[in-house]
């Protein structure tokens, strides 16, 4: 295989961009492998992460929903309890008075004034008190307004009180033109006469009761009548005694929290409690998204975490996979190169054996032709002139010349296959090259070639076979001279390669070698000089360099340049003698 020789020439194709074959290996195999590794690794890494994040998302979300309702619920139930207590306490006081005092006593203006005074000491929020008979007429009145003999028979709270024994009224303006509400209790005396004790409270007391000390700016707590009329001012629903925008929630005995769409499509959380035995509904409203602020922050963190994790995973997986596949490919390439080298060596060896065999077999008949033709010349020389003598002589001579040519070919074939012990001596590469160039001096001068020798600093001397090295470089430089036009350029560069090798590069700016010929340039009988060459030159060169433990590579750009590089060890390896004997 000559791929290894071409390695320098063929630009390394990248497996992620190219879909063609190199050295018989399809590159898409690496792409597929890469794809498989990337896909599986990403799946394994990202899938559990996604599952975890999604699960967490819903769990956190649920927990948050519960959590935001909790304080609202607490607020509603507390408010419900304190409002109950508030009304019960006052109704109980009125109830005690109506039972403790007789109708006549309560009709007594002075007595009621005394009672009101005592009540007012305990309940400062009390505005006035009055006794109303079964017909709804106010018999006695203590308070800032002159409301004696007012008729309350049409009032809802009066009817309720007459019917159920106690009643709490809506907030209303009434005769007094300020928001207030009434508490009323009813009883009958022994004569079956029913009467109602009524007390009025300023509606402001409700507002005071609802006062939110925790988050007054975020929440809106207010009281609604069962008709949907505001009993206290509301931040979102409007002024007192106007209709509220909020829809009435379903009736419930306990406090509840529900969600419902509010103004501007925003969901609002509504906590409410129906206050039993009163027309009041306690309500507390808060915007859901305000409550969920914490949740949104958490959610954003979660998504950020997810996003960063995925980006990181993708980067690591891509970089890691690419690195791994590159390593695999490098290993493959190395193995393949080694394989090619072994194959190539074996091929060269068998070609060598074949060449030697052919040369040997041809030598014997050549020897006969040589002797016969030689004898003819001898005889002709010994014979007196006769008419056709010169003609015969001139026919015999080309036979001998042809035998010479053939003999040269067989000798070169043999040299190609030859295995002789190397002579070793210490050689300065620069001197050797200059020596070789001196053989070609005349040609260079005649053709005005620009020949240069550049030597890197501190190139070590090598131990090798001088004669063979001369042969190698004579051949290579001669080829270079053959490739360039008159006035062309041949540069020779000598450099050290690591600690144990020296490289000699011969570069010409000649015709170049087409890629298809680079394959077999080192094979015997390969020639492009149809008329002149035997094609053994480079194969012999190759054999010699191998023999010396070195390597020869060629690289070329058609029409521009050709570069032969010979890398030689500073000390030759010891080759196995027995295998050579077998080959001979």
């Amino acid at each position, binding site marked *: 295989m000559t791929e290894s020789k071409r390695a320098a020439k063929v630009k390394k194709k990248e497996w992620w961009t190219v879909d063609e074959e190199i050295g018989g290996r399809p590159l898409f195999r690496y792409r597929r492998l890469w794809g498989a590794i990337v896909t599986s690794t990403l799946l394994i890494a990202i899938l559990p992460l996604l599952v975890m994040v999604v699960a967490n998302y819903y769990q956190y979300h649920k927990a948050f929903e519960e959590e935001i309702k909790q304080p609202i619920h607490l607020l509603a139930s507390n408010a419900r309890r304190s409002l109950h207590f508030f009304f019960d306490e006052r109704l109980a006081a009125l109830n005690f008075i109506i039972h403790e005092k007789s109708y006549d006593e309560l009709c007594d203006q002075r007595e009621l004034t005394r009672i009101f005074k005592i009540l007012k000491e305990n309940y400062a929020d009390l505005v006035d008190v009055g006794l109303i008979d079964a017909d709804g007429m106010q018999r006695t009145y203590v308070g800032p307004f002159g409301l004696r003999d007012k008729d309350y028979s049409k009032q809802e709270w009066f009817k309720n009180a007459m019917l159920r024994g106690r009643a709490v009224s809506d907030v209303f303006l009434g005769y007094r033109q300020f928001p207030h509400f009434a508490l009323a209790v009813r009883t009958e005396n022994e004569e079956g006469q029913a009467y109602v004790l009524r007390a009025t409270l300023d509606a402001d007391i409700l507002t005071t009761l609802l006062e939110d000390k925790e988050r007054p700016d975020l929440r809106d707590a207010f009281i609604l009548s069962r008709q949907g009329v505001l009993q206290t001012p509301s931040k979102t629903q409007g002024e007192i005694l106007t209709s509220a925008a909020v829809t009435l929630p379903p009736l419930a005995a306990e406090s509840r929290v529900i969600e419902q769409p509010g103004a501007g499509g925003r969901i609002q959380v509504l906590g409410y409690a129906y206050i039993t035995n009163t027309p009041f509904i306690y309500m507390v409203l808060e915007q859901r998204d305000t409550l969920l602020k914490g949740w949104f922050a958490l959610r954003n963190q979660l998504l950020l975490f997810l996003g960063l994790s995925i980006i990181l995973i993708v980067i690591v997986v891509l970089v890691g996979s690419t690195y791994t596949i590159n390593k695999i490919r490098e290993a493959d390439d190395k193995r393949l190169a080694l394989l090619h080298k072994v194959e190539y060596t074996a091929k060269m060896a068998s070609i060598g054996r074949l060449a030697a065999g052919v040369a040997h077999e041809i030598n014997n008949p050549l020897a*006969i032709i*040589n*002797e016969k033709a030689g004898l003819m010349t001898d005889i002709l020389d010994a014979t007196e002139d006769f008419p056709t003598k010169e003609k015969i002589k001139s026919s015999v001579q080309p036979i001998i010349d042809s035998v010479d040519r053939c003999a040269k070919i067989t*000798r070169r074939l043999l040299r190609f296959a030859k295995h002789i012990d190397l002579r070793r001596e210490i050689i300065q590469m620069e001197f050797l090259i200059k020596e070789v160039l001196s053989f070609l001096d005349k040609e260079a001068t005649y053709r005005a070639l620009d020949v240069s020798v550049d030597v890197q600093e501190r190139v070590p001397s090598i131990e090798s076979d001088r004669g063979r090295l001369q042969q190698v470089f004579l051949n290579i430089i001669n080829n270079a001279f053959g490739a360039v036009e008159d006035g062309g350029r041949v540069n020779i560069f000598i450099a050290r390669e690591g600690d144990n090798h020296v490289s000699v590069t011969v570069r010409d700016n000649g015709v170049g070698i087409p890629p298809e010929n680079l394959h077999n340039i080192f094979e015997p009988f390969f020639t492009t000089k149809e008329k002149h060459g035997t094609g053994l030159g480079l194969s012999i060169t190759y054999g010699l360099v191998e023999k010396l433990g070195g390597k020869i590579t060629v690289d070329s750009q058609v029409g521009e340049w050709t570069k032969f590089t010979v890398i030689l060890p500073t000390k030759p390896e010891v080759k196995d003698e027995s295998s050579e004997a077998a080959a001979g």
Partner: protein
Amino acid sequence: MSRATGRAVRQGAPLKTGDSENKMPAKFLLVDDEEDYINTLSERLELRGLGADVVHDGAGALSYLARHEPDVVVLDIRMPGMDGIEVLRQIKRDHPTVEVVMATGHGSAVEEKLARQLGAFAYFGKPVDIAELSATMKEASAARRRQGQG
């Protein structure tokens, strides 16, 4: 050309070793199985004053030497039966003063080395240049004479 008159040109069929018994033994012996080649070579050498006897195998060469020692033996390597290297070895063992010139079409470096180690005077690859060969044969002969005198 005047030298060529020294000895009659052998013609026709190859010379059998027995034939040479009656004649004056030659100073040279040529050993090669390629008859066309060796007979022609013998003729040409004779033209140059180097009269030689010819045998066609290793065994023939050894039996020739048993009867008569030439100055120089020109020996092929690749032959049927005993090969040239073996013949060389026996000649050098039994007739150490006889000089041997190897001439072969199958020469390899290993064989050349071996031949020289065994005491071959010279080593030629076929086809051989007649002038070179005859000069070497004369040299070898002279060398043996010197040794013989010494």
